[in-house]
């Protein structure tokens, strides 16, 4: 019998049992929609992180504390534990002085969470201490007022520059200019001398505009009370100079920190370029993606088991029908195909509806929660293929059961 006939039979049978068909489909719909949603979120997050890193510029180097390897591995757990809090402001100043031919600007950074207050309104934010070079190195611009100067840094003066989100959180209005006002940071008063131009979020990551910037000296001494800096951003003179700069910085810091081979195992800092950052973020998002994929696969399997369950019930319920069909000349293959195509139609149709729901859900999530998402056609294709395969796989057992029925027993079945 031609395949189109099996389709006609299957459609007729699904049509005469709409409720059962819809409920079975629901499992697959949910499975596929979840898959699409989850993959869209995962890919959106990956893309925004990648964009962020790419936005840093190609001649940027970052120095961070700690060994190069992830601290979770067994090897690094055995390594000396005092390899933290070693980067100092003097390290940063030395780097800035020593390599003028390869290094354009150096911005040491220190970060910490603070409580800010303005005219009785409270908010939590992040204080970021740095030097005036920060603007150049990190590509920041001002929306109003000015950035702080070296004079203000060396003088340990109480001035700050505020990001948009902080201003919005404190005043309840966007685009507010706080220049000239007094901002209380951890109960101590700072004069706002400028507003940072917004970097914008849409990343799902930390909000770059939720920041209070100030000279690094008051940030370390007055606000955070720390002796070490958390990192250094470095702009190189050109992309070609980067390997040289990386090498110069590494040997300088090893010498300054009195480190002994083997390297890089014994390093207590990392010098990373854009490629390193990308690789690192990809390993994180990769883990996230596999986790989400596992969730998606499980939900598809649950949907498939739902199909098998209903198809088994349906085979039992239609035992007599199978008997009649065999009595009038249906071959085992005819019966097998009918049930298998029923299962496939349920799963493919469910898959298509699931794709639509998943895409709509993704759009909704992006517009309501402001998450950045990315629906890739590949993910849609895979979801459809997988849902069809799930339907066929879980449809085979019930279909075979129906096909192998003894016609007489089937006809006697009540």
């Amino acid at each position, binding site marked *: *019998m*031609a395949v189109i*006939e099996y389709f006609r*039979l299957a459609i*007729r049978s699904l049509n*005469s*049992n709409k409720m059962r068909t819809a409920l079975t489909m629901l499992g697959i719909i949910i499975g596929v929609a979840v898959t699409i949603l989850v993959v869209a979120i995962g890919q959106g997050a990956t893309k925004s992180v990648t964009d962020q890193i790419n936005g840093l510029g190609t001649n940027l180097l970052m120095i961070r504390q700690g060994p190069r390897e992830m601290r979770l591995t067994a090897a690094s757990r055995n390594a000396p534990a005092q390899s933290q809090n070693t980067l100092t402001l003097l390290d940063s100043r030395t780097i800035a002085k020593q390599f003028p031919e390869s290094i354009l600007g150096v911005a040491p950074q220190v970060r910490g969470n603070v409580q800010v207050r303005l005219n009785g309104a409270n908010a939590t934010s992040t204080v970021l201490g740095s030097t005036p070079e920060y603007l150049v190195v990190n590509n920041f611009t001002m929306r109003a007022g000015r950035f702080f100067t070296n004079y203000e840094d060396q003088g340990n003066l109480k001035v700050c520059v505020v990001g948009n989100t902080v201003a919005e959180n404190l005043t309840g209005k966007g685009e507010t200019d706080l220049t000239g006002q007094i901002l209380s940071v951890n109960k101590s008063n700072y004069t706002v001398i400028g507003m940072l131009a917004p970097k914008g979020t849409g990343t799902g990551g930390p909000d770059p505009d939720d920041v209070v910037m100030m000279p690094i000296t008051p940030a370390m001494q007055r606000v955070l009370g720390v002796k070490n800096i958390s990192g250094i951003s470095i702009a190189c003179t050109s992309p070609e100079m980067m390997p040289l700069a990386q090498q110069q910085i590494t040997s300088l810091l090893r010498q300054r920190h009195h480190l002994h081979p083997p390297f890089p195992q014994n390093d207590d800092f990392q010098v990373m370029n854009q490629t390193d950052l990308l690789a690192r973020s990809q390993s994180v998002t990769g883990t996230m993606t596999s986790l989400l994929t596992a969730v998606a696969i499980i939900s598809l399997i649950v949907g498939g088991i739902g199909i098998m369950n209903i198809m088994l019930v349906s085979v039992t319920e239609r035992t*007599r*029908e199978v*008997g*009649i*069909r*065999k*009595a*009038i*000349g*249906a*071959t*085992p*293959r*005819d019966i097998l195909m009918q049930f298998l195509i029923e299962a496939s139609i349920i799963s493919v149709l469910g898959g298509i509806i699931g794709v639509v729901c998943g895409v709509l859900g993704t759009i909704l999530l992006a517009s309501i929660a402001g998450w950045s998402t990315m629906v890739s056609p590949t993910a849609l294709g895979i979801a459809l293929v997988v849902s069809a395969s799930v339907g066929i796989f879980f449809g085979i057992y019930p279909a075979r059961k129906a096909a192998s029925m003894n*016609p*007489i027993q089937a*006809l006697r079945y009540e």
Partner: protein
Amino acid sequence: MDRSSDLLLCIRDVYKIYVMGGQEVRALDGVSLDVHVGEFVAVMGPSGSGKSTLMNLIGCLDVPDSGSYLIDGAEVSTLDEYELARIRNKKIGFVFQGFNLIARTTALENVELPLMYGRQKNRTERATAALTRVGLGDRLDHKSSELSGGQQQRVAIARAIVSQPRLILADEPTGNISTLQSEEIMQIFQELNEDGVTIVMVTHEEDIARHCKRRVEMRDGQVVSDQPIENRLLAKDVLLELKKPRESKVSVLLPGA
């Protein structure tokens, strides 16, 4: 007259034994039977005597434990499931006691099914013709739940004859329906038989059996008597009789008649 050339069914010493709870049930206990083309056989006997088992065997729904069964010269026990399905589709039309239409499906779709499984063309026309022949030309799109018992049985007959089989097997086709409707069904069978279709029919009603040409009596899985039927009834005449009293009553009621 040489009848070996038109021997349709040849059953020789067939056994079918079921074991139920350690106990042997001899459903067929050495049955031999020949049926020639054009015959109209009534199989009779008490409940449990093996009539349905014999019909299933003849209909290639089952194979005997031992013995030989040839249909149209082909030994059924040597055929595989696909060849059996083909014979059921092409050579045999089945009518069951329980009507056995597919639920939630129209009369036309039910009748088209054998043609579908037989990869035939012009299905709708042929199915419509078959339904018209059994007097249901105006009920094509009715589902089985919308038809009376007699009408459902006629749909089943249409389904049995649509692929123009040489043999019709009917297992108590009039078991669940009224006398008038039974008679209408017997009329259809008699017409089909006139056209050369061989019919084997199980019944336990003497009146129904008298419409056939030959009576086979079974008991405990064995054939105990096999005789031609004398004083055969014709459904056409019986129907006329059944309708007559009403007509005469009407004529009595008509003034001046």
